[in-house]
């Protein structure tokens, strides 16, 4: 069972992702961080295999957190989940910084699972 940490300031997005992950059968959600700084702390305490992270959050944003996470934890795989996925520059920046993929919103559950399972 792969452990997934959800990072999003939106309660409703966290709820949607949690449901998709926990109903998958092979993935389990280990928590919900509301910004980048919380994500770094929870990555340390929960040791997830995968992090699903929003880009646009108050406090530390997703791309800033991504920069730190890839240095602090070489094993964790980060996927960005964002409404800005269609912005070429943002997508490229995330991939360049080490994100494994970018999921655009609105998303389909099947699409999320396919991407998480491919990691």
């Amino acid at each position: 069972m792969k452990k997934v940490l959800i990072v999003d300031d939106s309660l409703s997005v966290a709820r949607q992702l949690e449901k998709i992950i926990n109903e998958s059968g092979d993935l389990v959600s280990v928590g919900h961080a509301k910004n980048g700084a919380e994500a770094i702390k929870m990555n340390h305490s929960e040791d997830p295999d995968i992090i699903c992270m929003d880009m646009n959050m108050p406090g530390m944003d997703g791309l800033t957190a991504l920069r730190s996470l890839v240095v602090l934890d070489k094993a964790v795989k980060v996927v960005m989940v964002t409404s800005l996925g269609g912005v070429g520059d943002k997508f490229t920046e995330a991939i360049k910084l080490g994100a494994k993929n970018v999921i655009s919103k609105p998303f389909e559950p099947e699409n999320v699972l396919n991407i998480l399972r491919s990691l």
Partner: protein
Amino acid sequence: MAVKFFGQFLVEQGAVTSEALLHAIELQERTNLKLGEMATAMGYITADDIERAHASQLSKDMKLGDLLVELGILTPSQLQEVLDRQKSTHLYIGEALVKVGALTPEKLESYLAAFKVDQAPYVAERIELPDWLRNQPLWETAVDMTYKMITRVLGIRFRPGKCQEVSRLSTNQMLAAMDLSGDATARYLLSVSAGLQKTIAKAILKEDNVDQEPPEVLEDTVMEFVNIVCGNVVAKASQSGLSLEINPPTTIHPALNGLPVPDSYRALLFPIHVSNDEVMELALFIKQ
């Protein structure tokens, strides 16, 4: 006066009974096929093809027909044939009422003319923006994307109202706002009534019942909807070479006398007519 559908207007005017209207609507539903249904009826595609196209439509700003062509399911000439067939067989409500014997063709003509006059202040045929507005294609995209996401993500049927400049937004259950900066500076606001807030929550959370959800979750779903719209607007704008940033969305509970437009901003209001009881409004506060 309020926004009405033609059938509703006719019933109100006493031109037809609600039973006759219902008969006409049933006839319309049997006659008018959606693009996917028509293409299926013509033997060009299967239900699986439609499902595949709908799934990829969520992440692509394309009409179903264009997407079916892009996915290699329909050829461009087949699409044209389907569109032509849809157009030539489309039955409007007025025609349906004539067919079921509820109206004469002559009466239909005169009521149509009266309806146009009645609805002229409310119905926008297309997104019309004032001449003073800079970056018109961007704001047209913002409004158009809102309409598309209301249909696709929320599954709400609505009629867009006419754009108007306002100096204050009237009060409502809540407003979700998102600030845009970069090549344009503006605040995008969506105002929703209590019933629509729940409709949005059901669609975003994919739940049938949200009565037990705390207010912050209901508000969050509206903010998330605004986030989806604005993120996609920024993506679309980037394709035209405009660079925009968005800040996380916020919730505003306006005072009873509404929300004033800040100095050095001008505000455009786009009413979104859903039903008589539920109010949704899109507003753009654009920095001058």
